[in-house]
């Protein structure tokens, strides 16, 4: 599971349990701000030239570096390079809020013009980013903002995935996989994690309200991903008519795959979230995984960097920018991987797809 889920615990939302809602859920920002698509944020050639001559610098204080955040970091580095902004320091807090505070203090010794960071603990954000605020850096957040910080005054913006959009796209992929008609098993993340809660609820809402031919016939909560095989096994034994399964993210989906193999259920299609090599390999090999839904992680970095640069030029940036979600299926696995993570799909996935 992507570890940045925990960092988004504080993400504010107007979402309530989907089944109880009449209106489609929407993604809102840390302080309830409406989402703005990132594409609205562009720089002119004149602005880029101005940035290149400004001698600006940037620093990163990451929560933790792994495949997803590595893609965000690479997007930001590439965009800073395009704008002539030198990256002077980069840190990895190992998901430790105290270490992230130390990291922020350390990188501020280089007096960067921009600080890009994903807060490990938004509740402790005021202390974590105090040195950056004092040092006058333009702070751009990823996924979540520090609690108590005021947009436009203390920080530039928050750039995030469109979590509800991911859930919506996952429902769309399920509809495609079942050709508009089928019985769906819904396995949701049974924990207080806003990121997964939002995605799960949005998926469910769209299955129930957008796609008339699809019915959720079984629901099960997954608190511990290690128990996914027991959950999937029980669900399929009790509901043998299920032909579509929603799994909240890719890692447990690979556990569901082994259950399907044991039961000989090659008629069941799985949709899940995040790009993952074993899941991708199954998908392109004609296995049970029909589609993987991903956010444009690389673009989160690109636009975080661009937002910071725009702020240096005195431009106002909207408080909550979101990137698109995309459906990655067997037909677009190479392009989808590239678009989401900014690098090629693993060779095993590409080879199996050819």
């Amino acid at each position, binding site marked *: 599971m992507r570890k940045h889920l925990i960092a988004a615990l504080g993400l504010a939302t107007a979402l309530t349990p989907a089944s109880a809602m009449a209106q489609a859920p929407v993604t809102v920002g840390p302080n309830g701000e409406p989402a703005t698509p990132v594409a609205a944020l562009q720089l002119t050639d004149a602005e880029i030239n101005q940035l290149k001559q400004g001698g600006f610098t940037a620093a990163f204080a990451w929560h933790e570096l792994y495949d997803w955040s590595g893609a965000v970091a690479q997007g930001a580095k590439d965009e800073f390079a395009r704008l002539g902004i030198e990256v002077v320091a*980069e840190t990895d807090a190992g998901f430790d*809020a105290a270490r992230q505070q*130390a990291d922020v203090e*350390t990188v501020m*010794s280089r007096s960067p013009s921009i600080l890009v960071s994903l807060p490990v603990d938004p*509740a402790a954000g005021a*202390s974590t980013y105090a040195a950056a605020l004092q040092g006058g850096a333009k702070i751009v957040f990823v996924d979540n903002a520090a609690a108590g910080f005021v947009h436009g005054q203390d920080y530039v913006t928050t750039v995030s995935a469109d979590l509800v959009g991911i859930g919506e796209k996952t429902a769309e992929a399920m509809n495609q996989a079942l050709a508009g008609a089928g019985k769906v098993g819904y396995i949701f993340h049974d924990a207080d994690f806003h990121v997964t809660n939002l995605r799960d609820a949005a998926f469910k809402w769209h299955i129930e309200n957008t796609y008339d031919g699809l019915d959720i016939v079984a629901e099960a909560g997954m608190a511990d991903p290690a128990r996914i095989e027991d959950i999937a096994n029980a669900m399929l034994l009790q509901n043998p008519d299920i032909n579509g399964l929603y799994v909240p993210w890719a890692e447990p989906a690979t556990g569901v795959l082994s259950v399907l193999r044991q039961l000989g259920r090659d008629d069941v299609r799985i949709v899940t979230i995040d790009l993952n090599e074993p899941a991708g390999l199954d998908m392109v090999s004609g296995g049970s995984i029909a589609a993987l839904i991903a956010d444009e992680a690389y673009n989160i970095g690109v636009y975080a960097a661009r937002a910071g640069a725009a702020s240096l030029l005195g431009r106002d940036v909207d408080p909550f920018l979101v990137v698109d979600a995309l459906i990655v299926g067997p037909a677009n696995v190479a392009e989808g991987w590239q678009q989401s993570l900014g690098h090629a799909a693993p060779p095993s996935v590409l080879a199996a797809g050819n």
Partner: protein
Amino acid sequence: MSPPSTTHPAESSPLARLSRINLQQYVVYVGFVAIFVFFAIVLRDSGFLTSRNLVNIALQTAPATIMAIGLVFALSAGDIDLSIGSTVAVSALCAAMAMAAMPEAGLLLGVAAGIGAGLAIGLVNGLLVAYLRLPSFLVTLATMGLFAGVARSLTQLRSIPVTDSMFTGLFGSGSLFGIPSLVIWTVVAVGIGHFVFRQTRFGAHVLATGDNPRAAMVTGIKVPRIRLTVFLISGAMAGLAGLLYSGRLQAAKYTLGETDLMTVIAAVIVGGTLLNGGKGSIIGALVGSLMMGLLNNGLILMGLSVSDQMIVRGLIILAAVAVSLRETTR
């Protein structure tokens, strides 16, 4: 063939005399100075030598230094405490939860809860090691995981804000006569730790226990009590580190201290404490901890990628530990 001479001519040469100097005693000081001078030259224009940056290093290393003091006692007695990282998180969370539950009791309750939690974990470790005679490595490996789980379940992964201004001043952002409170805590803890370790009978008994527990017992030292006490000290020090973390961050979370264990062990070993007991140094641990902080700080300011920082840091620690441990086997 002539019999081997008892005094080899080369042994009296200056080089031989130099080789007989116990480098282990000085490696941490030499390393600290060398790293400081290196960064001071390389990063002269990158903010390294600014007073703000140097104070930051002292502040950032304070909790690890406090934890290191406890670990010196445990290692010197021939034991190890791997649960100190988890203890930090549990103590910080207990302090924050106690203050949130009874704001009127504030500071005192928070301190009692935090240090009390550390002592309780130390007691569990100590009883299992000293009286059930289980190996400390395995006991504290188990309690490390156990209390990491407790820290997670205490608040269902949520962080607890710490709003008591006296607490955050005393353990975090406050200062006395311009000296940051974290520096004062470090100096006080190192001073007391050094005194107890070097100047008291208890300190001597700790070293005797670590050097040879059977011999220590024969000489009348109550070895189980000494071993229990070092775990209580280690737990209390980790508890104090938890208070410092939560005071500085103005929040407590289950991740606090989680990544510190290896840094603290490295600081203590580089500082001249033996892994297998019988020898230790509180001042060495302080300098070792500052050296780790210096290294983290300088490598970040050099603009190295995170991967490169980890590689270089690992190599330098490896070199320092190699020099320390090589000396101990002579």
